[in-house]
């Protein structure tokens, strides 16, 4: 009947990958790598996991090896972070274009320069157009559950899935995690051979040239697949809930009933945002918060319906788009809200770059600025906690 253990976010992901009974893991074992793959190498070494473990010479090679292995129909996994994800950049597009259902854990950290390995969302946001499904977790339990779901989502949509987890705040935090029985996990994600894969029995050419006559159509296939994944993800969330009793959805709203102003956040800061919303509600302010668990495909419909009747929305970005009008999450939300009949005023914030803590005072600042934007209109992006 499962067991409850105290493990880090990294180990929670490693346990999920072990229970998913992967066939192959490729990883580059140096900073900014995490203990996810270290734990997995231990599982393989001591015989708990029967998988091929490849220590490669870079993250570029790690993801390339995963693409190759996935094309043979194997269930594959890799983990990375920060500069490692950036080094994978070109192969990420190939993974989605070739429709390889790779699952990758990305422990979110800043990008250099200056050199910084602390938590923010710069790494994943820089890869948002790579055609990968992006899920974001907020605790070790979610890290475990989402990684299990990710294998099912990847294999049923034939798209690669990135599971994002805040560096240190979740990845290195030890928390109680419910681990289900391995048998239950296998029933949820049975290993089944994928069709149309490389084999010695049939002729097969992949990674082919897509000349101007074909590139567009081939690219559209992957666009259509990620659009259709919306329904699949909903279905898989429901099935996960019925099997394991934990309910996940594209977005999670907190304190939104009767709220005038709301923040939109991603990742682990949802906890602090809820706590500060509670204190402000006690002071009579009508504020709520929405957290995104899914970033690709972007849950625009869900966000639009959650924001109906809200006067002002503050979007908290933990990554920047230098020289852009807004930052990554702000821009997505703005685009999603544009065709609403009565859309809320939108205030952008940047906070928590390069591991800077976002304090309760910072949240108060953001809630207050969002409330005042409801009355006076929004200004340009506010860089919260920046020293002059």
């Amino acid at each position, binding site marked *: 009947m499962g067991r409850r253990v105290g493990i880090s976010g990294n180990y929670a992901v490693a346990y999920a990958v072990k229970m998913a009974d992967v066939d192959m893991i490729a990883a580059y074992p140096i900073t900014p790598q995490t203990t996810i793959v270290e734990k997995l190498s231990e599982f393989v070494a001591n015989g708990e996991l029967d998988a091929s473990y490849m220590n490669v010479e870079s993250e570029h090679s790690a993801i390339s090896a995963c693409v190759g292995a996935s094309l043979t129909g194997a269930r594959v996994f890799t983990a990375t972070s920060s500069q490692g994800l950036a080094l994978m950049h070109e192969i990420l597009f190939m993974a989605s*274009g*070739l*429709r*390889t259902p790779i699952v990758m854990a990305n422990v979110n950290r800043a990008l250099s320069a200056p050199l910084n390995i602390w938590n923010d969302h710069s790494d994943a946001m820089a890869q948002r157009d790579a055609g990968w499904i992006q899920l974001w977790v907020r605790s070790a339990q979610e890290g475990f559950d989402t990684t299990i779901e990710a294998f099912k989502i990847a294999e049923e949509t*034939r798209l690669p899935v990135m599971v994002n987890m805040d560096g240190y705040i979740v990845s290195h935090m030890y928390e109680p995690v419910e681990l289900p029985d391995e048998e239950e996990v296998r029933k949820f994600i049975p290993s089944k051979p994928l069709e*149309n894969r490389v084999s010695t029995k*049939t*002729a*097969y*050419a*992949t990674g*082919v040239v*897509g000349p101007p*006559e*074909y590139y567009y*159509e*081939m690219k*559209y*296939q992957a666009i*259509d697949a990620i659009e259709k994944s919306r329904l699949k993800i909903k279905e898989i969330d429901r099935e996960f809930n019925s099997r394991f009793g934990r309910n996940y959805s594209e977005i999670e709203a907190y304190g939104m009933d009767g709220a005038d102003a709301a923040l939109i956040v991603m990742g682990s800061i949802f906890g602090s945002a809820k706590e500060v919303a509670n204190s402000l509600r006690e002071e009579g302010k009508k504020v709520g918060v929405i957290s995104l668990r899914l970033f690709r495909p972007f849950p625009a419909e869900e966000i639009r319906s959650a924001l109906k009747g809200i006067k002002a929305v503050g979007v908290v970005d933990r990554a920047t788009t230098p020289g852009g009008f807004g930052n990554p999450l702000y821009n997505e939300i703005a685009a999603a809200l544009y065709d609403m009949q009565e859309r809320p005023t939108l205030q952008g914030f940047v906070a928590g770059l390069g591991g800077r803590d976002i304090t309760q005072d910072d949240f108060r600042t953001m809630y207050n600025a969002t409330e005042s934007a409801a009355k006076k209109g929004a200004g340009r992006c506010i860089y919260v906690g920046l020293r002059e």
Partner: protein
Amino acid sequence: MKCVKTTLKGWREIPEGGTIMEPGSSVNFDVTAWRTSSPVIDQNKCTKCGMCFLYCPDSAIEIDDAGNYRVNLSYCKGCGICAKGCAPKAITMVKEGH
């Protein structure tokens, strides 16, 4: 060999990920549009040494029933390697559309 020009497939008809499941499918690919000039063989100068046939990277040189070397323009990209490799200088590259 005659190039069979296939109609362009829509996105729903292309195998997932652009995978090609049938071998030898490049015979269906006409490269006429790649060419800016094409080889013209002077049959009087040709000694039938076969160098053009060997050198052509796209196997566009064919031998007809009479034993003469001919260019299959469906597969010729106009690279000019055949002309360079022709010892008796029987092949000249002629600009297309002139």
